[in-house]
């Protein structure tokens, strides 16, 4: 294979380890990153979404509204609009309502950007980049009481040790285990809604209802 063909002609079944230089937006490639995939020292998530200059729309989940980040002042709403990088800082509890039904706490930064659709098209590019966890770095799935924000449940995923391939299994396990617990807040008594995973494929009617709720 010539040097030029390493760049311009990518066999999508090649090991990702061999591919550092491809165009990740290539239609033959982007689908491989619809979840998350590691590429060198980073993890990429690439989604085609309906994006114009002002809004982002997920065809499976509806409008991509404000991201919620939890800080000392309570829930901070992040206006997720196209043409803007947003960096969720490492350690910040965050969630996207109706997209994933838990608070995500990552040991590493997450960088988001949405690029409007090219002229004549409706679907733009939504890009998530984060560094690949190593060693003891990882992330948590957490739940705070929706009434008083008390931390009521948390599952840790040792991403650096277990690797990205285990992430979705861990996410589903955390959601399932959390939903089997008593979700009543020990502080204020509020009964909190069911959790749900990022991917809608495994939604039951109960999970669909939870996704609509929060």
């Amino acid at each position, binding site marked *: 294979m010539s040097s030029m063909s390493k760049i311009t002609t990518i066999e999508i079944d090649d090991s990702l380890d061999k591919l550092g*230089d491809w165009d990740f937006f290539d239609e033959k490639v982007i689908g491989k990153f619809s979840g998350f995939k590691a590429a060198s020292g980073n993890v990429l998530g690439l989604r085609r979404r309906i994006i114009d200059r002002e809004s982002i729309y997920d065809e499976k989940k509806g409008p991509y509204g404000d991201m919620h980040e939890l800080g000392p002042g309570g829930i901070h709403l992040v206006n997720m609009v196209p*043409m803007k990088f947003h960096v969720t800082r490492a350690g910040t509890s965050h969630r996207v309502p109706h997209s994933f039904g838990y608070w995500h706490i990552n040991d590493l930064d997450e960088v988001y950007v949405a690029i409007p659709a090219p002229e004549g098209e409706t679907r733009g590019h939504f890009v998530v980049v984060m560094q690949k966890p190593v060693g003891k770095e990882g992330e948590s799935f957490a739940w705070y009481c929706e009434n008083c924000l008390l931390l009521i449940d948390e599952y840790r995923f040792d991403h650096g040790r277990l690797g990205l391939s285990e992430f979705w299994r861990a996410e589903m396990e955390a959601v399932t285990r959390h939903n089997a617990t008593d979700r009543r807040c020990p502080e204020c008594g509020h009964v909190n809604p069911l959790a749900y995973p990022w991917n809608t494929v495994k939604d039951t009617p109960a999970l669909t209802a939870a996704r609509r709720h929060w």
Partner: protein
Amino acid sequence: MSAGLKEPVLGYDVPLEGPNGWHEANRYLLWTGHFALDAPPVALQERIDGRTETLPLRKRSLSLVPAGTPHRLTHLAGFWRTSDADFLVLRAELPEAVYVSLYVSSGPLHHTDRLFWICPACGTELAPWVYDVGRYGALAFWERLREPVRAFNADPVARTCPGCGAVHPTAYAWDAEEDTPEERLARAAW
């Protein structure tokens, strides 16, 4: 910034349509820039197997330069760089401008950036400048690189290839606003 009082507690927002420039965002260093549609194209070049390869310009592209791969951007970086951190290039052509966004994936494993030139005749590396990112930070590399660029331009010996004797063309730094007339011509040329 005084005593970190303006440091965001949570996240960072960086509009792509703002002035061209670097933005520190915890472990990531982001550069946002936009150019006129008819401006000289900012294309990613890499050295692969001893050859310079230019990635094709597309209306949309996201490219990742793995740590350790020599790279530069035409008309934006008048030098070559290697780093032990990944580098990502996002290019989006929209009706009003071409947007180029860069990610330097920094952090505790990012120790060194190197700047150098490559003899256009024979590929010999010229005048390497090693920067201690661990000590001075990732942003400072981009702020200080004008110094070795100007030193290279001022030193005929450094610009002359010891292997074949070819003289390297004038180099230029990152921020075009501070270019000398000679550097401005060089930026337009390569």
